[in-house]
């Protein structure tokens, strides 16, 4: 298999950046998108050139480190699959493929395909936490939780924080990400104790760095974990409640 790759190169955050074209052939359709980049990088280093910088770690779709836009689509052509699990069999032989970083105003490019997603960490730090020091937790069997309730919480807790939702959104909103955390923690009895201040603080941190939601729903279409779009409604509901409550 043969592909023409147009890959975004950018020296550092200040560099305006540009696309560079590479022809790669003798590809195996079973290779992952990132293994193709590995191979290209080996070739570049052999030629004395700098490797294309890109992020990845677990390479089994759970750590959320990887993520590139492929032909304008976060993670790649196969929906709900991280870049590391995208296989070349999704492409046509001879196709031109454009690979660029997860684009978003909130994700400055550090180099080539590497972006800074620390804004997401700041949303969590603002309130996606539980004020409970080590050792002080009550017996977890003493506080019962329904079977379906935890399963529902897990649908939201499954978010891998890859940022694809932000990149897919025309406004660069992080509401699916934030809503997923708010929903997850509100559904569990002990974390739910803080749900009012949590929503308020997380939304404030989110609005500091990310765009507003216009309900396009693009975010859920690319989410590798299929985080339900209802996370957004959840966020709006919790936020309304937090506005009704006096500050704590």
């Amino acid at each position: 298999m043969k592909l023409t790759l147009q890959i975004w190169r950018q020296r550092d955050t200040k560099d305006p950046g540009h696309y560079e074209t590479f022809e790669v052939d003798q590809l195996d359709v079973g290779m992952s998108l990132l293994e193709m980049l590995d191979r290209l990088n080996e070739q570049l280093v052999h030629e004395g050139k700098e490797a294309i910088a890109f992020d990845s770690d677990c390479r089994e779709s759970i750590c959320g480190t990887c993520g590139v836009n492929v032909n304008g689509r976060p993670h790649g052509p196969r929906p709900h699959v991280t870049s590391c699990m995208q296989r070349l069999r999704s492409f046509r032989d001879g196709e031109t493929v454009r690979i660029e970083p997860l684009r978003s105003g909130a994700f400055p490019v550090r180099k080539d395909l590497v972006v800074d997603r620390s804004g997401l960490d700041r949303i969590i730090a603002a309130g996606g936490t539980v004020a409970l020091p080590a050792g002080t937790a009550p017996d977890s069997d003493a506080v019962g939780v329904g079977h379906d309730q935890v399963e529902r919480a897990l649908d939201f807790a499954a978010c891998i924080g890859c940022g694809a939702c932000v990149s897919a959104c025309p406004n660069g909103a992080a509401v699916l990400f934030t809503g997923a955390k708010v929903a997850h923690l509100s559904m569990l009895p002990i974390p739910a104790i803080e749900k009012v201040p949590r929503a308020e603080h997380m939304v404030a941190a989110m609005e500091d760095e990310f765009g507003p939601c216009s309900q396009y729903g693009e975010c859920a279409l690319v989410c590798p974990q299929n985080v339900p779009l209802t996370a957004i409604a959840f966020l709006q509901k919790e936020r309304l409640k937090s506005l009704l409550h006096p500050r704590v």
Partner: protein
Amino acid sequence: MTNSTLPNTATAMTTPPPPSAAPGVMVGSQLNARIPDGDPETAWLRRRQEYRVVNPANRKKFTVAVVGTGLAGAGAAAALAELGFEVHAFCYQDSPRRAHSIAAQGGINAARARKVDNDSLYRFVVDTVKGGDFRGREAEAYRLGQESVRVIDHMNAIGAPFAREYGGALATRSFGGVQVSRTYYTRGQTGQQLQLSAYQQLMRQVQAGTVKLHPRTEMLDLIMEDGAARGVIVRDLVTGEIHAQVADAVILATGGYGTVYYLSTLAVGCNASAAWRAHRLGAYLGNPSMVQFHPTCLPVMTPWQSKTILMSESLRNDGRMWVPLKPGDERAPGDIPEAERDYYLERKYPAYGNLSPRDISSRAGKEQIDSGHGVGPMHNATYLDLADAIKRLGANTIWERYSNLLEMYRIAVGEDPMQVPIRIAPNTHYTMGGLWVDYNLMSSIPGLFVGGEANSSYHGANRLGANSLLSASVDGWFVLPYAVMDYLAGRLGQARPALDSTAVLSAFERAQARTEALLQVRGTRTPAEFHKQLGNYLWEGCGLNRSDKSLKTAIGQIRALRSEFWQDVLVTGKGLGVNQTLEKAGRVADFLELAELLCVDALDRDESCGAHFRIEHQAAGEAVRDDDHWMFASAWATTAPLDFATNPTLRFTRHAEPLHYTNIQPARRNYQ
């Protein structure tokens, strides 16, 4: 037997540690692991009573550097910050949430023993110690079981949505090698949920200003003053700048080093660098050759494959493993009639069959592949066939049971496992070995603590499934806070090294020189090429099966490869800015040294135990231990000039920590 009475029998080595079968190895001293005397069941309680505490008003005066933000590191950093200490937390990923703990699937054990299936703390300890084939510490297994109760409660309270029964109580499942049900889980993503919960608590302290977070930062060296650890030298992976962080104590929680084999179930960034640099500065390395291989990984499908994804072992409940009887049979699996198939596990181990333990199943699979029976395009796998189960239980039931795994397989391989048998192969998974620590999790360098998979505690020669999420959590949340505070209490009023002290400058210069040296070789082979080659040598020489011959061959190959590396490695780009080729080169350079010691340890340990399988010591395919001579943990010292920018000759000394069993008597495993 109850274990409340004080034990009166103790089993220990009957003879002093034997001389080494590995050429050039020096036999060192016997180590004291500072385990409290007396009943191991009450040891932890008694030790906690002895520990000193630091007055809350004084805690701000102490700085602790925590390297690693997995379950062990995030837990320790958050807990110490909650207590009021100043913490600096480091990880190489762009966010602390992404540590490889996130990839664990199956679950976490706990000795809560609420049901009437007759589980108990004692049974947990027996399973852990037996699972480790009597090469781990009994008192630590007790601590693991005792603290497991608080781990579950804490994780539950901070947001881990553990599976629940319809009545609301925590649900459990059974896991390999255990007859009771004590594994807590969140679907097939337990590690993710525990890791995210720990990460959130870490971020809470970051928000509070008590933890200073350094993501995308790699530890390169350890600052030592007067023989004690007093900080770390790190490289900012974005700017490329190298800087020093002084501290009163350092915690390494940098995870496992299975990536030394190149292919493994670990993340591609997992590395041994922090641990290995600390080792070169004097921290002993415990049982480095004790590595667990997992029988059901996705096989290698292209020469470019960068890792082997784990397929949960649970599939073996319904899948039958087989290979064609005829070597090199190229027919599609469906075209091979029943009579021409070899269900090798059922044939060799009729009692346990497809559910034989991990190491036995892994070795049996490799034996088939090596003898030419391997299947798939690269002839490097065996079949795990669900067809009989689908016929018996129906496709719906099977799909419901394993849908997430089967879907992952479908995406990765492009075949439908409901129609065609799954191809699997054994691969590297978990390192029981790691930096040697005493019972207080302190290494042989004062002030340097090690938690989680990075240390060699708890698991002996083989880790029981679902016990390592537990050990990382216990270390982080419920051991290190006590032990580190005790250590700091003894340092009240003492200063940290100044940034321009010799201690800091010498470490800084070492790290700087190493980085420059790697950039200057300008040879012809990439770091990844060296890494792959090293992986092949290790897999053949020190993998599932080890022999005197294979290990000696591997040692020679590794030494030669290391000297080629320092003459021929090619790193493009510069030291400043993002340079992933440089990062990789540094990690591979350390792997090339660690790999030699891994083989030396395996050659030295002239017995089989747990995952360490010396073909010279077996009975019907089972590991045969030699308790008379080898009932001790090896703790290795490496002596070589302290220069990380060249390829010095490494000299090894094996120290020994004798192991004592009081409540549990050593016995031999039998699965036939």
